[in-house]
């Protein structure tokens, strides 16, 4: 009832969101340092890791969709861990034993300088079908690129990099991660990357969810609780000259309405359901990418410039949320 009453309160004249204390020059330098060649090399490495890895034992799942027999994660997990460690991070794991659904989330942190108890979380799932270039080596590459850029900078808040396990089997790793986080731990912002490197001349949309006709934009998806973060992302994009065509979609309330299912298909959803803020960065996957969950999801199908642009925006957004760079 309280939610209803709040929803009915007319908010004419409500102040527009603004960027507070944004160090735009430092953010622009940060964005410029995003290395497109390194990103694509990382995508290629992870795609190769998936391609050559042994898939999960899908026979244990019984009569399942055939693509689950091409789901891999072990090699990409080892690779993500080694890349984070090579950048100087200490990587911890959250392991849940549950047979075939056992999960291992990877966690690395850059401790904040003045508000270390407050956390900005950057995550992507590292499991994938087939080679999984867009889904989700592109997202993992974004996490690792931000980890690289942030490793030499300071931030007021702690930045936590997380590799989620078994997203493809129903957000298993991220659900367990959110469940493990203390309810009073202040995660002040989260960004989940899932499929951020593909463009296409056409874009599909759903009734009630309008989008541009050309599939060359980054979708930033938020719920009501995360709306300010989405607005700030948009403002940062505009303030830095339009790093990427951006479409923001803000689902009402906690984002869990019955008609918002397509907006809850990645690792941000468990955060929403737990009442935490989270943004979802995506190229919209199957709404433009014919290779989605197919053997043809290969690095050469990605748009390197688009991937770099998305990671540039992600870098400045995460840095701003974290209070920096200093």
């Amino acid at each position, binding site marked *: 009832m309280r939610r*209803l009453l709040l929803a009915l309160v007319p908010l004419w004249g409500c102040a527009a969101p603004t960027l507070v204390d944004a160090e735009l020059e430092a953010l622009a330098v940060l964005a410029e340092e995003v290395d497109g060649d390194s990103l694509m090399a990382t995508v290629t490495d992870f795609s190769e890791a998936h391609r050559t890895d042994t898939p999960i034992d899908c026979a244990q799942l019984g009569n399942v969709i055939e693509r689950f027999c091409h789901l891999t994660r072990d090699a990409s997990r080892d690779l993500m861990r080694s890349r984070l460690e090579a950048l100087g991070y200490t990587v911890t794991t959250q392991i849940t034993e549950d047979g075939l659904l056992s999960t291992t989330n990877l966690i690395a942190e850059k401790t904040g300088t003045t508000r270390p108890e407050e956390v900005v979380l950057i995550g992507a799932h590292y499991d994938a079908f087939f080679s999984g270039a867009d889904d989700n080596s592109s997202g993992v590459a974004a996490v690792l690129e931000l980890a690289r850029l942030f490793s030499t900078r300071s931030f007021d808040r702690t930045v936590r990099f997380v590799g989620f396990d078994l997203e493809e089997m129903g957000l298993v790793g991220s659900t367990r991660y959110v469940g493990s986080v203390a309810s009073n731990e202040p995660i002040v912002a989260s960004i989940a990357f899932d499929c951020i490197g593909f463009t296409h001349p056409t874009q599909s949309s759903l009734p009630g969810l309008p989008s541009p006709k050309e599939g060359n934009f980054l979708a930033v998806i938020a719920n009501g609780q995360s709306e300010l973060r989405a607005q700030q992302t948009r403002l940062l994009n505009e303030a830095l000259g339009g790093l990427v065509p951006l479409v923001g979609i*803000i689902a009402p309330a906690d984002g869990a309405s019955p*008609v918002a299912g397509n907006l809850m298909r990645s690792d941000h959803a468990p955060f929403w359901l737990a009442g935490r803020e989270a943004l979802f960065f995506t190229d919209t996957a199957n709404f433009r990418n014919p290779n989605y969950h197919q053997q043809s999801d290969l690095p050469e199908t990605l748009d390197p410039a688009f991937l770099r642009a998305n990671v540039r925006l992600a870098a400045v957004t995460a840095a701003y949320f974290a209070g920096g760079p200093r």
Partner: protein
Amino acid sequence: MSRFHPGGLFLAAALAVPALAAPPEHRLHLSFGGGAQAYLSNTRTMGGVGGSVGLKDVYRDFLLLEADASYLFLVGNVFSLRGGVGLQWPGLYSPAVSVNLGLMMGDRFSFLQPGMGSAGPTPSLTFGLVVSPLRFWTSRGIVSVLQLGAGLGTEFPGLGGSIYLGLLEISVPLN
């Protein structure tokens, strides 16, 4: 040769009616309905399914004045107000058409699109037309089993559209 004028017959019949039954000029009804409403623009989508309660005045058996308030869900919590004026066909089978002004407020999908502002939290306002082709009227009330409506609204920037589907509306007389 005298000339027959059909208006004269109508006038005579109209004058005769008060002498026979003297029905009230205003027939006030309390209405309860259920259905779906949506408002769609490039900057927001609102609406849902739910129920409504309203007042309906049938003036001289053919003119409708109506207002209702709805609570909608499925896309968060949404509150809708509509007011309109219309015409109904007198008799047991009484299809109706009305024009109305609609206001919708509450939760919504918001979109931040390139080159467009955001809708903000202001209510959507639409002007629309509703037809009720399966509507029946007796002295004991009005039953409408299908209402179809569409409208246009100003969005800043751009234009919005509304659709309305009423599945059942029952109106009971208050006088």
